[in-house]
């Protein structure tokens, strides 16, 4: 009887020969399935050829065979069709098996063609301990031409059991207790009411150690972003002793078992990670490195927002995910970073989705040059792309930007992508779409309708000093200009090209930091403080160029000329006087600023429009009707 076994050195020879790109070139190899476990609807495993183990995954089509028992853990399989892929962001590879068949009978332990001293480590309940003695994959020398693998002679040092324990455990709890709670819980199942958990997570982001001082004293703090195999993320914070203890232990990209942390509801103000809870680790918490164990970062968990709903995310801290069909890809542009004058590449792509709206996404740095180039080459095929962690800005209404954490996937294998592609192929291609930003700008022709939404009296703003604390609040109001201070710095010297502030050059001319150029001339742009009044109260607002020009009826350059004119009648004062006590409809934003530790409300004009009497009357009638209805319902009780 022929005993089936693994193909010796199969894995190392495959890994060393990336030119095997079709199964016909590649000999059919037999490997053993170890560590078989499900992730979503697919199964991952370790492909073991007795000497080397590599991470592998079965495609979803093979899941039924695993469930039926045809493929089991520790069994041998002949790989008929598979590809070798990269684990994202790491230099290691994994096998994606699309076709295979079980051979022989299921074995009862992991095959190990290494030195015999492994035998006492057979028990698969402690896979970690086993690995300590395994030859690390990276040590294997590859001879590409002959496919013969050469290995340095194993330096084998015998260790006592307690030595092994301390090496592995480090600071962690004794094995007995650990193994009971070793069952790994998915991050999504954690809550503040159940403390008996262990999670297995990768550090996907690590903050710096910060020192703070508050009423209760001083301390230090840092936090990490943890991601588990399902893609769920959570932030973990450590203070003082715990911070010092774990700061060096937590390293970006490494995998850890963590238990005995506490959970509480996340502070929405600082939330960028999508989780209702956040974790705190203290001195009693356990953090143990999952040494040399790889953990998959599986298909990233996306939470797609339709383009037409992006409006409410503008300028918010929350990052969003987007999926769309590529309509156009720009060439790479070089933008100078203001902070350090470094040139960074950027590429703009336009995406469309079923909401029949388009949006521009700016790809920065590597995303612009790498994946951006790929997209440019395949733009005519209208690929679907999914992007995770985009920042939403207000350039041209709505604009999206990638950050270092952003992740772009071209033509992802997801139901949303399929749906999008089929929509595009059937109707999306032909349908006319509008940019999401065009309806947003308060200065657009359609923007006048925003003069009537969120309408308030000035007292609503002044009576609520914490308005706009978390995020800017947008309101509309109708008010009179009651005072424009004549001797204020009403404008700044601006670059004619980019409108940013310029500084006077030592020789004649003006230097623009943004354009990195010197110009002969500059223009003046308004930055004006104005007092407005209505029947309920008054407040100061600041107005920028376009709105101030509408209020005053002349440009800053013109007004400057008038200001410096001599004569009996000061035209400058006249202009200001004419603007005073004029009534306008304003669109404003209310935010909070800190001045010398004090929080102050800042009201900025976003748009201004002349009073439309009919529209205003309708608002008043609505108001009266609301008040009478309220009163009537009060009388009923």
């Amino acid at each position, binding site marked *: 009887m022929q005993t089936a076994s693994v193909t010796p050195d199969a894995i190392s020879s495959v890994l060393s020969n990336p030119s095997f790109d079709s199964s016909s070139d590649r000999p059919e190899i037999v490997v053993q399935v170890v560590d078989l476990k499900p992730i979503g609807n697919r199964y991952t495993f370790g492909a073991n050829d007795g000497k080397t183990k590599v991470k592998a995954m079965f495609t979803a089509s093979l899941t039924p065979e695993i469930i039926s028992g045809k493929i089991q853990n520790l069994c041998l399989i002949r790989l008929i069709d598979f590809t070798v892929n990269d684990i994202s962001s790491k230099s290691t590879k994994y096998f994606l098996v699309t076709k295979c068949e079980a051979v022989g009978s299921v074995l009862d332990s992991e095959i190990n063609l290494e030195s015999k001293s492994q035998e006492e480590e057979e028990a698969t309940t402690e896979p970690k301990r086993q690995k300590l003695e395994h030859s690390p994959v990276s040590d294997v020398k590859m001879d590409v031409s002959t496919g013969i693998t050469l290995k340095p002679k194993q330096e084998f040092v015998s260790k006592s059991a307690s030595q092994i324990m301390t090496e592995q455990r480090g600071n962690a709890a004794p094995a007995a207790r650990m193994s009971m709670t070793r069952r790994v819980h998915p991050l999504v199942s954690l809550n503040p009411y159940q403390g008996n958990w262990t999670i297995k997570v990768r550090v996907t982001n690590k903050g710096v150690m910060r020192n703070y001082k508050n009423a209760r004293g001083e301390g230090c703090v840092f936090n990490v972003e943890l991601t588990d195999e399902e893609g769920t993320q959570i932030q973990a914070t450590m203070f003082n002793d715990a911070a010092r203890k774990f700061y060096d232990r937590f390293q970006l990209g490494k995998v850890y078992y963590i238990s005995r942390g506490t959970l509480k509801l996340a502070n929405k103000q600082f939330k960028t990670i999508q989780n209702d809870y956040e974790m705190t680790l203290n001195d009693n918490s356990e953090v143990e490195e999952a040494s040399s164990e790889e953990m998959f970062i599986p298909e990233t968990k996306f939470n797609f927002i339709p383009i037409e709903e992006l409006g409410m995310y503008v300028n918010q801290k929350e990052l969003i995910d987007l999926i769309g069909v590529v309509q156009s890809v720009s060439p790479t542009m070089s933008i100078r970073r203001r902070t350090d004058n470094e040139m960074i590449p950027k590429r703009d792509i336009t995406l469309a989705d079923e909401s029949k709206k388009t949006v521009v996404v700016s790809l920065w740095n590597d995303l612009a040059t790498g994946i951006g180039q790929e997209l440019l080459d395949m733009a005519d095929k209208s690929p679907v792309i999914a992007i995770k962690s985009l920042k939403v800005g207000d350039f041209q209404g709505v604009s999206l930007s990638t950050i270092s954490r952003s992740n772009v996937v071209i033509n992802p294998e997801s139901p949303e992508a399929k749906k999008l592609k089929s929509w595009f192929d059937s109707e999306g291609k032909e349908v006319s779409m509008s940019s999401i930003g065009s309806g947003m700008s308060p200065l657009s022709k359609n923007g006048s309708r925003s003069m009537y939404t969120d309408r308030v009296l000035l007292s609503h703003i002044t009576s609520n000093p914490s308005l706009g604390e978390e995020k800017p609040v947008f309101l509309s109001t109708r008010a009179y200009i009651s005072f424009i201070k004549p001797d204020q710095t009403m404008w700044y010297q601006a670059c004619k090209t980019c409108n940013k502030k310029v500084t006077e050059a030592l020789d004649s001319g003006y230097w623009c930091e943004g354009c990195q150029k010197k110009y002969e001339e500059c223009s003046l742009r308004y930055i004006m403080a104005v007092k407005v009044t209505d029947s309920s109260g008054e407040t100061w607002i600041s107005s920028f160029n376009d709105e101030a020009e509408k209020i005053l009826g002349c440009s800053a350059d013109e007004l400057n000329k008038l200001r410096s004119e001599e004569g009996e009648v000061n035209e400058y004062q006249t202009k200001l006087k004419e603007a005073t006590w004029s009534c306008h409809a304003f669109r404003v934003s209310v935010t909070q600023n800190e001045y010398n530790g004090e929080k102050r409300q800042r009201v900025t004009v976003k748009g201004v429009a002349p009073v439309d*009497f*009919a529209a205003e*009357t*309708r608002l008043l*009638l609505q108001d*009266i009707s609301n008040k*009478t209805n309220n009163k009537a319902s009060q009388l009923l009780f």
Partner: protein
Amino acid sequence: MDTSSPSAFVNGALLRRYIGQKVRTVIQVIGSDTGSVVGKSTDDLQIVVRGPSPTPPLTTYLEVIGIAESDNSIRAETWTNFGNTFDPQNYNELCKLANGEFKHLFI
């Protein structure tokens, strides 16, 4: 400002309440005859206005102040051009409020 003879804000339906009294209303001219003007009130009823005709040029909407003669006619004393972009619904609501809930704020 002469407040000796105030005029009540009326539309077509409210005119009957003030027969013999001074009223004011805004109408859209739909026709004219010798000595009278036919107009559409803000609540889409027909009102006939007798007396001196308004002097051209005339805009779409005109306000007339005069004495209510019947439930659909007024003897005009003063005409005023109210423009072409007048909102009749708003005026209509005003008439209702001025004669209803907020009558005490008016005459």
